C-alpha cells in the first residue's frame, strides 16, 4: 500500500452521554477514492468533521502527510460539506472568486467552470441554481485551491438520478487527476462505482474495510434469487426464504437446484430474477435492517 496521505489513529470523540467515535483507525493512501459508509448515527459525520479539521477529537490524532493537521492541510485540502449556505446576492463567478481568494494557489474560474460544467451559469445569481447546479458550484468551491485531498460529504444527497450520474462523472474526472477523495454517501451504488476502498462504520467504529469487490468476495459466496411474495402463495419451500417487502429473497450457491425445487413446488417463475450480492446487501447485513433515528 502506498504511503498514506491521511492517517487516523485511535480517534475518539465523546459528547455528553454519547461516544460518537469510538477508537477509529484507518489509513487513506494517496490517489484513491476512499469511501466512508455507515448508517445514520454511526459516527461518520463526526469522523469526517474531525478529518476536515472542523471538530477537535477527544483523543487520538489525524495526520496529513505525516503531520498533524495545520496550515499546510488547510491549503491543500478541499471540502464540500453535506449542507452549506453561501453568501446571498453573489453570482456563481463571484462565489468562486471569493473562495479562490482565500488560497495562495489554485485553478482559475474558467478552469473550474470547465471542470464542473458551470460555464453556462457563471453570471447567474447563485441562489437561482438548481440542486445539481448548486452541488457543482459547491464542488467547484471545494476545488478552487487545486487540492491534493478532497472531502465530499454526501455530495449527491437530494439530487435526481440524472443529476446524480452527472455528478459521478465529475468525480471520475477528479479521480483521473490522481487527487485523493474521501467520500461519504448513503448510496451504495455510488460507493461501488466511485470508491477504490471502503470503510464501513457503525457505533463509532470501523466494522469492515477493503475494496468493494474484496469485501463482497469476503462476505458472500451465494447469489440472490428474488420472487414476488404473492408467487409463493403460502407454499412450503424446502429452503430458507427471506421476505423483503413485496419480494422474497432466496440465497443460494446453486441456482439450478433452487429453480428446480421451485418448479416442483408449483411456484410461477415469470417474475423471478437472479442477481449477485451487492454492496447494499453487505451494508445491511453488517449494520442491520432495523430503522435508525
Amino acid at each position, binding site marked *: 500500500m502506498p504511503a498514506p496521505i491521511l492517517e487516523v489513529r485511535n480517534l475518539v470523540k465523546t459528547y455528553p452521554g454519547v461516544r460518537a467515535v469510538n477508537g477509529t483507525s484507518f489509513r487513506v493512501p494517496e490517489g484513491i477514492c476512499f469511501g466512508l459508509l455507515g448508517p445514520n448515527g454511526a459516527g461518520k459525520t463526526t469522523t469526517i468533521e474531525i478529518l*476536515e*479539521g*472542523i471538530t477537535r477529537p477527544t483523543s487520538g490524532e489525524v495526520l496529513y502527510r505525516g503531520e498533524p493537521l495545520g*496550515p499546510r492541510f*488547510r*491549503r491543500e*485540502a478541499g*471540502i464540500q*460539506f453535506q*449542507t*452549506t*449556505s*453561501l*453568501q446571498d446576492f453573489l453570482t456563481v463567478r463571484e462565489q468562486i472568486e471569493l*473562495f479562490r481568494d*482565500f*488560497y495562495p494557489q489554485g485553478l482559475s474560474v474558467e478552469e473550474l467552470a470547465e471542470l464542473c460544467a458551470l460555464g453556462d451559469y457563471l453570471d447567474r445569481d447563485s441562489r437561482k441554481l438548481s440542486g445539481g447546479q448548486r452541488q457543482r458550484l459547491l464542488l467547484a*468551491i471545494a476545488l478552487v485551491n487545486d487540492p491534493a485531498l478532497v472531502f465530499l460529504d454526501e455530495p449527491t444527497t437530494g439530487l435526481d438520478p440524472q443529476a446524480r450520474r452527472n455528478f459521478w462523472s465529475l468525480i471520475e474526472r477528479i479521480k483521473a487527476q490522481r487527487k485523493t477523495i474521501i467520500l461519504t454517501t448513503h448510496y451504495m451504488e455510488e460507493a461501488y462505482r466511485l470508491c477504490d476502498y471502503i470503510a464501513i462504520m457503525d457505533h463509532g467504529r470501523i466494522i469492515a474495510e477493503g475494496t468493494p469487490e474484496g469485501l463482497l468476495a469476503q462476505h458472500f459466496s451465494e447469489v440472490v434469487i428474488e420472487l414476488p411474495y404473492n408467487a409463493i402463495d403460502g407454499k412450503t419451500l424446502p429452503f430458507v426464504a427471506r421476505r423483503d417487502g413485496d419480494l422474497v429473497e432466496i440465497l443460494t450457491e446453486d441456482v439450478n437446484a433452487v429453480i428446480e425445487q421451485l418448479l416442483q413446488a408449483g411456484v410461477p417463475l415469470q417474475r423471478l430474477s437472479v442477481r449477485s450480492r451487492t454492496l447494499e446487501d453487505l451494508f445491511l447485513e453488517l449494520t442491520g435492517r432495523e430503522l435508525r433515528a
Partner: protein
Amino acid sequence: MMAALKRVNAVMRARMLEFVRDRGSFGWNLLLPVLLVFGLALVFSGEPRPLYKVAVLDDAAQSSARHPFLDTPHIDFYPAESLSGAQADVSRHQTDMLIDLRHSPGRYWINPTSGKGELLERLLLQTDPELQRQTITGKPIRYVDWVVPGVIGMNMMFSAMYGVGYVLVRYRKNGYLKRLHATPLSAFEFLCAQILSRLVIIIVLSAAIFFGTGLVLEFRMEGSHFALLLLSAVGAVSLIALGLIIAARAESEEFAEGLLNAIAWPMMVLSGVWFSLEGSHPALHWAAQLLPLTHILDGARAIMLEGAGLSGILPQLAALAVMSALFLSISAAIFRWERK
C-alpha cells in the same frame, strides 16, 4: 380547510415551543422591557424641572448674605464654573441669565433675543435695581443642532451593532461560517473584514445623512469636519466591536436581538441621544461613561456646537480607542465559527 388549519396550528405550536425553549431569547425578551421601564423611571424621577436656568457667580452663595433673587421659586440657580463658559451658554440660549455677584455693584448678562432672559431681568430688577445690565448676542443652539449628532450617532449604533450582529448569527446558523472555517481564513481576518466593510458602510451613510440633512436644516457646525470624521470612525469601530461580542457566539437571531436590544436601547437613553441627562442621578452619569455612544455624542457635540478641535476631543477619542481594543479582544477570544 380543517387540514390547512391543523397544519397552521402545528407549525405555530412548534414555533412557540421553540421560542419558549430558547431560554436565552425568551429571558431577554421578558427582561428587556422590565429593565427599560425601570431605567426610564429612574431617568425621569425626582422633582419636575424648573422653567428657567440662571448661572450664578457668587463667592457668598452659601453665606447668610445670600442675594434675595436667589430665593425666587421655580428658577434653577446653578453655580457657574467660569465667566466665559457661562457667557457662552447665555449666548447660545442654553442658560437664560448669568449673574455675577462677586463685586459690588453686581452684573448680569442676558441675551436680548431670549424672551426668558427678558422676563428674568424684570424679576431681578424688582429685588435689586442696582445691578448692571450686560448683553451677549449669539445664535441660539436650537434643539435640532443639539439632536443631530444624537440621531446620526444612534443610526451608527444601530447599523454597527445590529448589522454585524444579525449577519454573523445568520452566517453561523446557515453553516456559512463553518464553510469559511474550512479555508485558510482565520477568525481574526474574518472579524477584521467584517469591521472594515461595516465601517465603510457606516461612514458613507453617516456622511450622506450629515450633509443631506445639513442642507435642509442648516444645523450648527463650528468645528472641523476632519475631527468629526476621525471621531466617527473610531466610534464606529467601537460600536461594531461591541456588536461582534454579541455575535461571537449567538446561535439564534432572537437571542441576538434580545441581547442587542438590551444594550442598544439603554445606551440610546443614557448616552443622551434625545435629551441631556443633566440633573439626573450621578450613577447614571457614571454608567453613561461606560458606553461608547456617550463619548461619540459628547465629542460630536463639542466639535459641532463648541468648535472643539482634535485636542478638545482627545479624552473621547482615547476612551473610544480603549473600548474598541477591549471589545475586539473579547470578541476574538470568544468567537465561534459553528453552532454547538
